């Protein structure tokens, strides 16, 4: 019988690997995609769900139905501001779930859309977001097949929250999951990093950097299809959203118990992103992306995959940024531009701009 978890949560007994006792209430870091997000799932949701939870709940589940394998994923979107340079919460809601499916190697088929709307929100604003969703879905080749709408009292929401859930089909022979990362794999990122996070931040905080940085939000399943079409053995795919490249690489390294060795100079970081991050004291490796993927590819296939990516509009700036190594399992280490080394850790919660 399942343990009764209806009483107060005993935070003091959470001792592995890092207790949450320093935070008995939800703080913003729990949604940051870093260590705190992971601990919330590991220490609260999974034990609470008990036997009802499938081990290793990832961004996308793989379900076997008859002879077919289906990818199944859900995501919620609460971005502020809702409209930003290069997109809106509407595009994110479609592309985000499409990408979660694509990272399992699936061809996305259909999405559900659920809205939580705050009383008083302008219909025109919702219409604009919905139109963006329609356009994005058409562009991604998915259909919106079911949905739901709820309204909460004024002051009890932030105008528009959107959940999308998606389903897709995984072709035979495709086996993409973090556990498959192995020593020797080449680590590839599909293009410039940090664009989405800086675009939203610049808009949210009224910061101006001299140039407008646009979000990179995009559906990535076409790029993944091009990579798979090479016949290469893709071991792992991940879209480095919240927590950025650093969080994704750390999660893969920990899951597969391998080390990741990056070459800092090989990271594609546009000058304006480096400048903005430098100004704010942020590290581009921790900044969110919404249209990039990171791939772990068998070494003999890396050149082929890179060539295929370079031929796709969403992969023209793809670059090999490092390799998977047997040393320092579970850790990501970068060779600095000057030739030193440093650890690239999993972010705790959200990155904070520094004082000076």
């Amino acid at each position: 019988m399942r343990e009764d978890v209806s009483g107060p949560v005993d935070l003091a007994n959470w001792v592995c690997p890092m207790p949450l006792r320093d935070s008995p209430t939800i703080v913003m870091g729990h949604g940051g995609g870093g260590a705190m997000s992971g601990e919330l799932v590991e220490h609260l949701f999974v034990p609470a769900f008990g036997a009802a939870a499938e081990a290793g709940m990832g961004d996308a589940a793989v379900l076997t139905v008859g002879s077919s394998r289906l990818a199944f994923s859900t995501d919620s979107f609460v971005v502020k501001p809702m409209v930003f340079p290069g997109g809106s919460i509407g595009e994110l809601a479609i592309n985000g779930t499409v990408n979660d499916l694509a990272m399992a190697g699936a061809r996305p088929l259909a999405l559900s859309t659920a809205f939580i709307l705050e009383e008083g929100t302008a219909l025109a604003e919702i219409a604009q977001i919905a139109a963006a969703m329609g356009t994005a879905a058409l562009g991604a080749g998915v259909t919106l097949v079911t949905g739901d709408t709820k309204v909460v009292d004024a002051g009890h929401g932030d105008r528009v929250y959107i959940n999308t859930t998606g389903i897709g089909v995984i072709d035979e022979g495709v086996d993409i999951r973090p556990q498959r990362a192995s020593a020797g794999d080449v680590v590839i990122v599909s293009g410039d990093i940090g664009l989405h996070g800086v675009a939203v931040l610049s808009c949210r905080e009224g910061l101006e950097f001299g140039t407008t940085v646009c979000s990179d939000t995009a559906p990535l399943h076409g790029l993944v299809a091009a990579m798979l079409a090479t016949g290469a053995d893709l071991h792992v795919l991940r879209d480095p959203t919240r927590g950025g490249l650093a969080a994704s690489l750390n999660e893969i390294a920990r899951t597969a118990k391998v080390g990741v060795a990056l070459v800092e100079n090989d990271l594609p970081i546009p000058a304006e992103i480096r400048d903005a991050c430098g100004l704010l004291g942020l590290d581009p490796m921790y900044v969110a992306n919404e249209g990039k993927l990171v791939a772990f590819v068998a070494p003999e296939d890396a050149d082929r995959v890179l060539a295929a990516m370079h031929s796709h509009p969403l992969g023209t700036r793809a670059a090999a940024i490092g390799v998977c190594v047997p040393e320092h399992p579970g850790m990501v280490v970068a060779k600095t531009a000057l030739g030193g080394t440093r650890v690239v850790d999993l972010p705790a919660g959200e990155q904070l701009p520094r004082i000076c």
Partner: protein
Amino acid sequence: MKYLDEFSNPQLAGVLLERIRESATRRWAIMEVCGGQTHSIIRHGIDQLLPETIEMIHGPGCPVCVTPLGMIDKALDIASQPGVIFCSFGDMLRVPGSSKDLFRVKSEGGDVRVVYSPLDALELAQANPDRQVVFFGIGFETTAPANAMTVYQAKRLGIKNFSLLVSHVLVPPAIAAIMESPDCRVQAFLAAGHVCTVMGTREYPPLAEKYEVPVVVTGFEPLDILEGIRRTVIQLESGRHEVENAYPRAVAEAGNPVAKQMLEDVFEVTDRAWRGIGVIPRSGWRLSDRYREFDAEQRFAVGDLQTAESSICRSGEVLQGLIKPHECAAFGKQCTPRNPLGATMVSSEGACAAYYLYRRLDLPAEVAHA
């Protein structure tokens, strides 16, 4: 960024490293005063590339680290009060007070906001006349001018619902305190370039003379730091102890006269407690009598808060350069960025955080994988 990439050039860094190697004939211990320099050194691996004869000692120049616990607790108390909008730079939100941090206050319903300029907080005060808006004014001479300007503007505009929680500290008295310590091992200083951008370099010759210690004003990019070290080593090797400006693209001898005038108008020098170090005489600023009405400590009557530091945290010794972060028994065990015992572990400029984030591989196994 123009004029930035040039100062990270690996080939030129190699040349400077070679010159440092050639110059250093014996062991030297050099303190970089500023936490921003500490992070640059660790993040770029400069300490790994220097010859073994050069030891970098990390100084107390992290504004978040040295803000005393009592001041953090005052911030938490004020931020928890109804009707208050408490504004701060981002990296103060995770610094632990005696029982919690500003993130916790926010999660409990406190209106805590991250701003990028104190002037943003003043705008909030104008937009919310029925609320009290408080800005947490911490930091060295670098951040002080903008805070002074904000209070000056508040007075000029007659804004009554804005106040500043002031915990500003000054670099030269800290250098003197470090040199006065009987355990001091520091033989030369890299002075913080951005502090000197405001204050100029004229405060340093008396220190260099009195303590017979070279002071080289240094920037923050890898080549800036290597050039600062190179010049320092040359002075040490030749027995000189002078003030040199290795950051002339940003620092003038007289500093920024407008900023200095604003500081003189709004602030006055006071004794100030430094977290982990204690009270250093005449080492900080408080609001001068003309602007005392904007003092949040007075407005919210938080003068008598009692505080308690962790008994096992050795951040004070880290801040004074007496031990390296991993030499503290709590490092990486009881004390991590997630559960920091001292501010040096939580601040983005703190030496303990730099070692934990970037350098765990080089540390003994028991702390590397803690």
